[in-house]
């Protein structure tokens, strides 16, 4: 693979994943809070082309799940073929808070439900929750990384370039942050918060906390690069020609940090996604009924769920290709630098 393609492939995969979650309302067949209470822990609905009589259908179809009397034990109701319809009307949703719609990519008619990835303990569609949950999980990683890189760039370049007391002060502060047990810090912060917090408020808070805790490593890396860059001969030359400090920083020093920042971004984003997942898993993230991958996984804390309903692990499995893409991206960027 060429170098450009090595970057393009994981990047395209990541962009696709983010687009999917951005347009979750359209792609997901149901609202995240809709509870089909007669279908708790329904397994993923198999999509068929061939019915019980051996007829081939060109339109894919599912069978409704029929409860056999025991809790969460189902069999397919093969009496009735329920074709999957595209661009159907269903629950209302709003996209990016800009426009509202009720058209969904696919769905089936009542009384059947389509649970491509199964349902959870309340009978909520896992696929819909996974997609909407991605909005919280993926974007909290992205935004938190942006925040911590911005902070890192600011503190690192200021310390590295101006040196002296400012540098010593910033670096000591960063050491304090490095030594902080951040999980306990988050517990503490969460305990002081008001009871009623909107999901958006919690989301922003999570990003702020995760981002604010993670700025130290990029700051130290940036500082190192700035320290060496400002000693270069061409910097001295430019200074000799009367360049201002701001010009030097902008034109000669900061561009050198670009590679490090990009690589750091590709490393920090998955780390911060994981941080959000961990927090939500422990119940410190967004509250019900808003999903995030972490709080979807939190039901797995119960042994019986873990051992009985395998599809509840899917939000954890989804993390693997996402993290792999970020890893490949980080490696290719590093090589390029």
């Amino acid at each position, binding site marked *: 693979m060429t170098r450009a393609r090595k970057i393009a492939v994981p990047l395209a995969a990541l962009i696709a994943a983010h687009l999917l979650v951005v347009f979750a309302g359209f792609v997901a067949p149901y609202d995240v*809070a809709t*509870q089909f209470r007669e279908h708790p822990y329904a397994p993923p609905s198999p999509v068929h082309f061939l019915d019980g009589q051996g007829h081939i259908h060109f339109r894919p179809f599912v069978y409704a799940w029929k409860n056999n009397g025991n*809790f969460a034990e189902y069999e397919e109701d093969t009496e009735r073929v329920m074709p999957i319809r595209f661009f159907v009307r269903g629950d209302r949703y709003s996209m990016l808070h800009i426009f509202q719609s009720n058209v969904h990519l696919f769905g089936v008619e009542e009384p059947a439900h389509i649970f491509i990835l199964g349902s959870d303990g*309340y009978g909520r569609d896992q696929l819909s929750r996974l997609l909407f949950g991605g909005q919280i999980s993926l974007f909290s990683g992205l935004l938190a990384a942006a925040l911590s890189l911005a902070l890192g760039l600011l503190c690192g370049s200021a310390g590295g370039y101006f040196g002296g007391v400012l540098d010593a002060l910033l670096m000591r502060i960063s050491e304090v942050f490095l030594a902080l047990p951040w999980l306990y810090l988050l517990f503490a912060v969460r305990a002081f918060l008001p*009871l009623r*917090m909107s999901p958006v408020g919690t989301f922003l808070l999570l990003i702020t906390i995760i981002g604010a805790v993670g700025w130290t490593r990029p700051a130290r890396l940036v500082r190192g690069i700035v320290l060496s860059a400002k000693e270069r001969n061409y910097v001295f030359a430019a200074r000799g020609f009367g360049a201002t400090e701001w010009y030097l920083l902008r034109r000669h020093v900061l561009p050198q940090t670009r590679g490090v920042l990009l690589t750091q971004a590709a490393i920090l984003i998955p780390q911060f996604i994981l941080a959000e997942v961990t927090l939500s898993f422990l119940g410190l993230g967004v*509250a019900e*009924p808003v999903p995030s991958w972490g709080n979807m996984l939190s039901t797995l804390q119960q042994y019986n769920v873990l051992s009985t309903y395998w599809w509840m692990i899917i939000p954890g499995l989804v993390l693997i290709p996402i993290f792999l893409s970020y890893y490949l991206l980080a490696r290719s960027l590093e090589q390029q630098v």
Partner: protein
Amino acid sequence: MNAFLRYGLLAVLCARAVCAFGGSPSSVGDFLVTKSEAGRLGGKLIIAERSEPKTLNPVTALDAPSRDVIRRMTADLIRINRSTQLTEPALAISWTASADKRKYTLKLRRGIKFSDGHGFDADDVVFSFQVYLDEKVHSVQRDLLVIDGKPIAVAKLDQYTVQFELPKPYAAAERLFDSVAMLPRHLLEQSYKEGKLASAWGLDVPVSAIAGLGPFRLKEYVAGQRVVLERNPFYWKIDSKGTRLPYLDQIVFLFVPSEDAQVLRFEAGDTDILSRINAENFAVLLRDQQAHGFKLVDLGPGLEYNFLLFNSNDDTTGRLPDVARHQVWFREQKFRQAISEAIDRDAIVTLVYRGRATPLIAQVTPGNKLWSDASLPKPERSLAKAKDLLRSAGFRWKADGTLTDSTGQPVEFSILASASNPQRKQMATLIQADLKQVGINVQVVPMEFRAQLDRVIQTHDYDTAIMALGSGDVDPTAEMNVWLSTGGTHLWHLGAKQPASSWEAEIDRLMQAQETEIDPKKRKHDYDQVQQIVAAQMPIICLVSPNILVGAKTKLANFQPAILDHYTLWNADELFWRQ
């Protein structure tokens, strides 16, 4: 009676309560001859506890693990048979009550001995009650033994006869003796006189310095791992074949912190009894009970009731404006009734408890067969009724379906639920979705249990909370602390000086009347009325009562689990291993 405060809290904390242990009735001479199947000696029983006991001192033990261990080592004068829920003789061989039901004369068994071989007589009884009633000792049992602010008086008539005098007639007098363990005067008098009784019998107590009248005695304690009890060779029960109980050589309490871990240990055969598990784990174990050689028992509804609690404290005005604003709704009877109508209790039963629970409209569960009012209607969900009630109370809906009060404020509130209790979190999430359908926006706030209790009991900074209460006994007197408006566990309105409304005053009157009423029919009538008021006024919205689910190895004989705490070990003296 400010009594029961600590007991009530305890019940909240662990959803279980007061208990002792047992055997079977019919006494001949000094030994009690049990009626249960005669077994064979030998073997040990291993059981898991959530945490280490804090102490081995019956006077100060508050936590469930301590009480589970201590109750195997001690005995009381009269005890409640967990299976029949009736009182029966224990250390007292018989008793009589005076005509005015204020004086009880108890005859003690003669010639029986503590587990160290020292004899037991009326002096030990008098000493024990002196300790329990001493305010300086701060015993847990004192609250139970103080009626109307006056302690029970105890007098020794002769070496084997004691008389108890109550300040006023007390309907459940015999039941008071259960869980009041008799203490050995010869071992504890010294430390009592030195004022050190509360700190005596910690976990580091030497085996020779602790003795009781229970079926087992202390063998060893290994910090962080286990407590081992061994057979008490001086125990006062024999079976129909003349074998002295207990049958088991040892009981081992292992410390296994989480329920899931306990289930795994049981499944692996490491432990012999599972004392109370949730419905999901029960379902998992049920699948392979045959192959593993254990049996699981669903005992039906216990005494525990889950409920949605509305903050009705009146000290919030000015201090907590947000809460006070929401309380205007909570104080409206029709609003509370509407919430109850909107909640789908059947969904809670199936989704949270896998069908192993019973929907409730009032606080007394169907498990309490003697006292629950069977005439109360079964709760049925009706959104239409809920909306009618809200409309008639002046609530309106906006175009987007949001419910607003008469001032136009949108109706929204939060529900606190213990983060470590998956069932309560699930109930809150279901209620959230239910109330969404009548236009109420609810926020579920999972919170560490201590923090939740702190808000409910201390700061009163909450809207609503999901909690559970369950008394240790079926008798209504055990619920006094919850339902009296001045009671210590009157959770929705704590620290009230007088009843906040006429119906609360009526509950107070009925609860006090039944406490001193001797005629059981009149008592039942009074308590039925309390339940009817609760069902109509809904100071708390009762949700469901979970079934008591237990399990044991099939080879364990005389296993007689009961819905009263301790569910499985209460007749530990009769348990034996079949060959």
